[in-house]
């Protein structure tokens, strides 16, 4: 047995070479969740970062094994809760692929629009939280004002604001709300007006630029070897947009650019996300007036059974490539399921790119990696 004072003495011990070991998290304002970073510091300079995971592990993959192919989709909303629509789409696409379900055009287009809206909402939240990490509080509220319009659209159509569960194998759970198109158009209009505010407040700000430029630089080779995807890899010049490489839903018929920056620093990651929002708006604008009439859900059997075998589907979430891998034994539930979540690989570069920088830089680096902890822990 040891008394309380001894524990305190123990935790205040220094590292092996007399460095300061600071526990950032699991309850820390900058980790946006229960990420625990054990940071070894030499004064203000970071020597080592060791992420400790598992505080929000809910064993979603194991849970999915006891749920049927209709039921397991809702659980995936709880992984990367900021792109829940896209997670749901990935699962639905996989089941459709495994059972050769024909998805109506209307469902495909609506899914694409909703996915892009989700991406914008996620990036909006990120831009606010990122600015907040760097000490600017106000952009958070401006970003949330636009995000609120998206959540309202989601609420109208899907009935929920965050964990929608609107996408089912074969299409959509029910038809879109009659106001959907007008509301989306209103959002697009407001977004285009208000996006300049971020330029004034954040992008152009000299303090913000000096906080992010040249900070946490990730090279092209490292981005590939660490398995980074999404905006993190694209900021380092890696072309990895699943919407371009393996188009799903209606992405093959819309025109958009894959945003690629080459600097690889925090500012490049920031710019990639801001430009991606504009590309998402471009996709929405192309599709919103051309939602085909017809069924919103294809013909499916009552009980879904995947054939025996292995299935893999990957989509582009707001954070990168989400892979769903299912081993089926031909039953109504998956035999084994695995999610390849983008956040986990993106987190793994943190130690590599933040080493040698200041504590303040860690906030910029971690902020631009856009970590969602439930996505990492699952």
């Amino acid at each position, binding site marked *: 047995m040891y008394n309380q004072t001894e524990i*305190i003495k123990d935790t205040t011990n220094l590292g092996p070479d007399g460095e300061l070991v600071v526990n950032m998290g699991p309850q*820390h304002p900058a980790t946006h969740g229960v990420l625990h970073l054990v940071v070894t510091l030499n004064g203000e300079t970071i020597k080592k970062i060791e992420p400790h995971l598992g505080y929000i592990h809910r064993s979603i993959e194991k849970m999915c094994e006891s749920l049927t192919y209709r039921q397991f989709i809702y659980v995936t909303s709880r992984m990367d809760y900021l792109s829940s629509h896209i997670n749901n789409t990935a699962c639905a696409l996989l089941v459709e692929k495994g059972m050769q379900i024909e998805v109506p055009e209307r469902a495909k287009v609506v899914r694409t629009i909703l996915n892009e809206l989700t991406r914008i909402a996620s990036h909006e939240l990120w831009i606010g939280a990122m600015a907040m990490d760097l000490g600017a509080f106000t952009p958070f509220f401006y970003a949330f004002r636009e995000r609120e319009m998206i959540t309202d659209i989601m609420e109208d159509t899907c009935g929920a604001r965050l964990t929608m569960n609107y996408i089912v194998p074969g299409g959509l759970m029910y038809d879109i709300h009659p106001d959907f198109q007008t509301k989306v158009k209103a959002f697009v209009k407001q977004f285009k007006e208000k996006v300049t505010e971020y330029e004034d407040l954040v992008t152009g700000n000299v303090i913000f630029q000096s906080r992010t430029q040249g900070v946490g630089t990730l090279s092209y080779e490292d981005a590939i070897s660490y398995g980074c995807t999404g905006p993190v890899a694209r900021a380092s010049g890696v072309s990895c947009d699943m919407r371009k490489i393996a188009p799903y839903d209606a992405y093959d018929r819309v025109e958009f650019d894959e945003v690629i920056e080459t600097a690889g620093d925090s500012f490049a990651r920031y710019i990639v996300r801001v430009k991606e929002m504009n590309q998402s708006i471009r996709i929405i604008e192309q599709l919103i007036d051309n939602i085909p009439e017809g069924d919103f859900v294809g013909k499916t059997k009552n009980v879904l059974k995947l054939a025996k075998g292995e299935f893999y589907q990957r989509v582009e979430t707001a954070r990168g490539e989400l892979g769903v891998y299912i081993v089926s034994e031909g039953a109504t539930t998956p035999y084994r399921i695995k999610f390849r979540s983008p956040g986990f690989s993106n987190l793994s570069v943190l130690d590599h790119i933040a080493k040698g920088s200041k504590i303040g830089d860690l906030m910029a680096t971690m902020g631009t990696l856009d970590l969602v902890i439930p996505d990492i822990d699952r």
Partner: protein
Amino acid sequence: MLSLESITKTIQDWLFAKFTPQIALTIECVIVILLCITLFAVLGLVLVLLERKVAARIQIRLGPNRVGPGGIFQTAADTLKLIMKEGLTPDAADKFLFNLAPFVVMMVAMLLLAPIAFAKNFQIWDINIGVLYVSSISSLSVIGILMAGWASNNKYSLLGAMRSGAQIVSYELSAGFAVLTIVVLTGSLQISEIVASQENGWWLFKGHIPVIIAFVLYIIAVTAETNRAPFDLAEAESELTAGFHTEYSGMKFALFFLAEYINIFIVCAIGATLFLGGWMPLHIGHWKDFNHIMDYIPSSVWFMGKTFFLIFLIMWFRWTFPRLRVDQLLNLEWKYLLPISLFNLLLVTVIAIMGWHF
């Protein structure tokens, strides 16, 4: 006309008529102390509420609006809550220093009130080295912060305190140089004389561009000196949770919080005195009628108005800008602010010697 000057004069005459000079002086001291503490409490409540309201308006919110009409009693309720909370002292902390630190910070803020002229002839202590006194005392507050950070025995606190030390020591320089420009123009360190020298126009207007530059430098430097965003590295909440006061709770935390706002008030009051004429109404050269009309507004209103304008400016900064990094903060001081203020001081000296100012 009823003014603060006549009230103090009446009280003083009455006291000296009634008592011996020693007792009268003691009673005056007690009154001044009580007034100071009351001013502290009121200022703390008002400024915290103001900050929250300004932040809310900038962030398209409403801000506190539940306690009292428009939420004006919100800070009073907060204070009540903080008084009732337990003031925890960590087990491994240096208990004496830990409990002393908030009072050191508070005391420094109180000492700074002495030379400020709140209205015409309404000043606690018109010391002949007023400006020097202010800049020397204000640099003492770093001791309280370092004490708090060290005694907490917390790594975040220590990091915050060290940052704060580096920051206050370096920004003291450019704040001092900005103050010196006015001293050069006035030729006096005494607050009352500095105010009197602005009778025919504030220094900001009659000192040409160098004084405007000095004013900007002063605002930047004091924002840093009071640990306000964008220079709030000592308590950068996304990096160090709460910096040097991480371990403080209850009323001890409230003292830190209060001291921060009192310091803002004081530096803004000094800024208003030096650059915007203190209690001196807006006078323009020889426009007799205009100056006469301006004189009807009480001098205390002028002083408070200018001070709160500067406070608003500093709050506006806080809710607009991101925070700097610690090395950039020092870069800004040593590479930009200090050379500019040195050059600026040279310019002002030339202007003062040649008598080019109005």
